[in-house]
């Protein structure tokens, strides 16, 4: 029984600069080699990695949707492990192929793909005063936070009484 799978492949930018179509085709051929029906294969993004992978700071992401038998992904994983231009990959089952996957690939200049350590598009300057994007806690703040303030307010009055007693 055929199932739909999603595969995200990190491709080295050095290989992409040599020729994106050839690089992409070499990866897509691996899927065809194991009789997996490729539904869609398109460049998802080129971005800076959150941490270096195999010495690379930037990589191009290739997103592939394919349909095959449940035994095939293991064989494809093995093939991708030994592919020279693949930095990392991940295959997992998905419910359905999204509509975006059928859209044509956005054209880009292969020769000017961002080199390591030099982003192709300058990142916006981080705003220092920008509040944290962390979601607010679902629970309301406890009323006990106001208690210390109330305690401080009562302290001076007590202190004055003690002075009067002395």
């Amino acid at each position, binding site marked *: 029984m055929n199932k739909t799978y999603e595969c*995200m492949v*990190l491709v080295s930018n050095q290989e992409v600069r040599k020729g994106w179509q050839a690089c992409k085709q070499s990866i897509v051929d691996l899927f065809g080699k194991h009789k997996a029906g490729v539904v869609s294969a398109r460049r*998802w993004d080129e*971005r800076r*990695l*959150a*941490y270096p*992978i195999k010495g690379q700071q930037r*990589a191009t*992401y290739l997103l592939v949707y394919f349909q095959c038998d449940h035994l095939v992904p293991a064989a494809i994983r093995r093939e991708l492990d030994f592919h020279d231009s693949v930095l*990392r990959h*991940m295959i*997992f089952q998905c419910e359905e192929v999204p509509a975006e996957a059928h859209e044509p690939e956005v054209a880009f200049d292969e020769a000017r793909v961002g080199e390591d350590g030099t982003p192709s598009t300058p990142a916006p300057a981080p705003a220092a005063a920008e509040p*944290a*994007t*962390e*979601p607010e*806690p*679902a*629970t*309301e703040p406890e009323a006990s936070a106001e208690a210390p303030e109330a305690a401080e307010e009562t302290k001076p009055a007590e202190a004055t009484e003690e002075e009067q007693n002395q």
Partner: protein
Amino acid sequence: MSDLDFDRDFEEGRGRRGRFQRFTRGKVKAEPTQPIDYKNIEFLSGYVSAQGKIVSRKRSGFSGQNQRKLAIAIKRARFLGLMPFVGRS
């Protein structure tokens, strides 16, 4: 147990409710505003702490099912270099 014993226990904080029992508030449920997907980095970044840890259900307000989806999506994004394991990108 005599009434005298009960009064003494109550004064010392060993009443029927227990000394360390706390008032629990009702859980506030929340639904994800965007689809939980490992490619949706901006959305996922809102559910990690400054150290890069996945926030708890108490903070996210998600149901158990959505919290599991969130955790899986964040872990996939980390593996693919889209999100850092430690700290914030």
